């Protein structure tokens, strides 16, 4: 097996997050000689966290310019680590930070890049990656002859590495910090009690545009819809998704669920989250939306239309019922 460089970056607490540990496990499973490249403020705590993983080397680019995710500095750090390690295969977790920077690094190294890999294997003695094409419509296994080959692994596809911490022998790699016109000024996040996107939740709750339509009494019940959905999310500790038609309403000035944004959108032009279970409500289960459910294992839906998309083999169970009514009972039971 060819030599492998695993690129990871530290989080704000100085340690490695779960996606990095998942990528580490995937790298170790391939079996080649492993070098770990770390980028961030101070690398020793993170290197110590995985000291027992069996990596041959721990290369480090550390310092203030590398504490913040930014293309110019991240690409410079990753490029330096790749050149120092000289590995044929470069693996990294598909975090927003690496997804931004590593394709450009592959170009600088004369290599190639593949992203959103869900697994790695060895085919004919060479590494091969599995990934989806056409927004989760078809799955392919591919390999490349060009080196270095940079592969970004999606989170949630591999078990995270667990093992003993220790004291790692780190080697600092010097990088000439590139000039940049970009300053990272902060992060905008919803208030803690309004945070509706929970990637680690066991349940994905999806709301469709039906929540904002007229109900049997001829009126729109937007306020009640908000209360029911937020109540359920809190009680079930679920993550919230939305159909495109619902999140688009906010851009068109129509009655909307105030906490629903494009960040919640699931589907062709939205997210494809990984949750063990998913519950869809007031959503017709059209194909462009359902491709976003590819990695939701157990699926149930509540819809008034027994012939909606969910009925055509896309959900395990379709409840033909009024979602408002079911949710009122659900919230009582979960309270």
């Amino acid at each position, binding site marked *: 097996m060819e030599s492998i460089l695993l690129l990871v970056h530290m989080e704000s607490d100085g340690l490695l997050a779960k996606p990095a540990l998942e990528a580490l496990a995937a790298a170790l499973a391939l079996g080649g000689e492993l070098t770990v490249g770390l980028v961030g403020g101070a690398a020793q705590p993170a290197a110590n966290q995985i000291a027992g993983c069996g990596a041959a080397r721990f290369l480090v680019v550390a310092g203030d310019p590398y504490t913040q*995710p930014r293309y110019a500095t991240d690409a410079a750090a990753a490029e330096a680590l790749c050149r120092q390690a000289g590995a044929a295969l470069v693996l990294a977790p598909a975090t927003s930070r690496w997804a931004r920077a590593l*394709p*450009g690094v592959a170009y600088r190294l004369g290599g190639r890049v593949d*992203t959103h890999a869900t697994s790695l294997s060895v085919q004919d003695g060479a590494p091969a990656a599995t990934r989806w094409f*056409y927004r989760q419509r*078809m799955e392919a296994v591919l390999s490349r002859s060009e080196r270095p080959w940079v592969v970004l692994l999606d989170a949630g596809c591999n078990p995270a590495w667990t093992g003993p911490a220790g004291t790692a022998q780190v080697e600092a790699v010097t990088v000439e910090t590139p000039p940049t*016109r970009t300053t990272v000024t902060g992060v*905008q996040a919803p208030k803690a009690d309004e945070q509706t996107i929970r990637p680690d939740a066991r349940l994905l709750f999806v709301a469709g545009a039906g929540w904002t339509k007229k109900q049997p009494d001829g009126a729109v019940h937007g306020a009640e819809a908000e209360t029911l959905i937020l109540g359920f999310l809190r009680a079930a500790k679920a993550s919230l998704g939305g159909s495109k038609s619902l999140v688009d309403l906010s851009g068109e000035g129509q009655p909307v669920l105030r906490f629903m944004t494009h960040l919640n959108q699931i589907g*062709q032009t939205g997210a494809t989250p990984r949750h063990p279970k998913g519950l869809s409500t007031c959503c017709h289960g059209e194909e462009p939306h359902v491709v976003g459910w590819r990695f939701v294992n157990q699926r149930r839906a509540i819809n008034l239309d027994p012939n909606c998309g969910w009925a055509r083999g896309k959900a395990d169970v379709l409840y033909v019922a009024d979602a408002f009514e079911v949710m009122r009972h659900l919230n009582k039971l979960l309270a």
Partner: protein
Amino acid sequence: MSTPLQIVVCGSIVPDPLQTLDPVTGAGSPSIKNEMMLPAILDPWAGHALYEAAHLAQKTPGSKVWLVSLGPKAKLQQVMMTVAQKVPFELVALDGTASGFSDSFETAAALAGAIATIPGLDHSKLLVFGGWESASRGAGSTLQMVGERLGIVEQFQGVDQITVREDGSFEVLERIEGGRHQVSICAAPPAVLGWATGHLPEPRNNPQVGMANMRAIMPALQRAKAAPISSAGLRFHSVSLPKQQRETRIVKNMPAEEIAREIVAWIGEE
């Protein structure tokens, strides 16, 4: 806002998402069955990038928008009949594959080459836009390599908002993990921005804009240079459709309370 901008949007075409897609594998790269027969649309995230570009250009007098598109010429022409009615832009067409199975490295080379030949392009005013991922390859890697080839290292991905300030600097909101946005200030162009959905709705069709655009689009399509993408080092071992058909149990006439109980029990299962 004073400084005019030159905004180049990279965007290709993809099969209409409502179509059934079947992969075909043969001696070369895989392809989609009857791909040339399937109705196509402008790639959705590239579409958002185009609408955001037009909106920004409208707010910044003297600005101009180009759409650089790599795809089969005949399909590009079809899609442009619709896209041209949305917002004003000038098309730079490249005749080649729009397949999701082609290599982003070579695609980036073709796009960067086309951008470099746009007459009068001034890097100090240049913003390169595109979708952060396509709905075909979905790699999210092409724009970064376009930027590198053009020497642009101020790059942003998953962009939902750009706010250009009086001094020519601009604030960018990029999507990051956990439903959050990273906020950055870039002092000046050039920059590359890979757009997520942004905040703008799809513009209504405007026949007058369509007519004005089409006057330049048809000659641009006739001028389209061939852009061969060989993907020589890329080998597909398999391409398959997922086994996704489920045996859906359709539950009718069950009281809401009972449904709720069943769902609670299901949520609680390991």
